[in-house]
């Protein structure tokens, strides 16, 4: 009987309960989070674009270097086939 009364009073302990108030600054924090979200959404594509540009520049440089190396090699081959000296030395 005592147990039953105790359980009933526990079950009814939320009667006449008031709703709790959230922190007064919560709205400010929410607005800040939303603002950060949208500024990050702009920053991310920008940083990707920059990284991609750097990679493309490096690749372009490698391509040019390889091409110029090949053309020097070609010049040497052509000079050799005509028994010409490939460099500019006279001796």
């Amino acid at each position, binding site marked *: 009987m005592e147990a039953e009364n105790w359980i009933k009073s526990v*079950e009814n*302990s939320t009667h006449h*309960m*008031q709703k709790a108030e959230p922190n007064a600054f919560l*709205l400010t924090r929410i607005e800040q989070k939303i603002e950060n979200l949208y500024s990050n959404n702009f920053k991310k594509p920008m940083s990707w674009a920059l990284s991609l540009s750097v990679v493309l520049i490096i690749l372009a440089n490698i391509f040019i270097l390889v091409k110029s190396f090949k053309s020097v090699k070609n010049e040497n081959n052509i000079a050799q086939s005509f028994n010409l000296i490939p460099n500019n030395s006279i001796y």
Partner: protein
Amino acid sequence: MKSQVPDIKQIYNEHNKLVYNLSLFYLQNSEDAEEVTQDVFVSVYQSIDQFNHTSTLKTWIYKITINKCLDFLKAKKTKKRWAFVSSIFNNGGGLKHDTSDFVHPGILLENKEHSIYLFKAIDTLPESQKTAFLLVNIEGLGNKEISVVMGKSIGSVESLLQRAKENLRIQLKEYYKEYRRK
């Protein structure tokens, strides 16, 4: 690109108590409830375009709140598991046992002690039963509204509530033994 920019201030003013209090009952911690409340309203702002008006805005916000609370609890459980594992390997570190008893700030003073046991018992319920119980007993929703929020039939909701009440009673009987020993 958003087709409509929601007035988050207005939505917040109309629903902040609902979200905060539901989170508080779920999470039983005011800091966690504040964090989840923020996440809910940011989510509402981000996904307002997806709100298709098949239910009321209030019902939609209930759904988001419940999902965020459940995600938060799952993440907390995972953290606890890792903390347990790391405590085994830490020198001189025992596992911290969380003994905080939640007291809702809105509970009447004479009911505070009893309410601690109630919230402890609610915390032991399975997710669906907890949700149904909180929505009907704390939020005061009807079974029909709960069925819309939870996406279940009214019959399922009634069954969940029945099982929640039974499980709570079983748990409270155990707590009564503890209470008697004090």
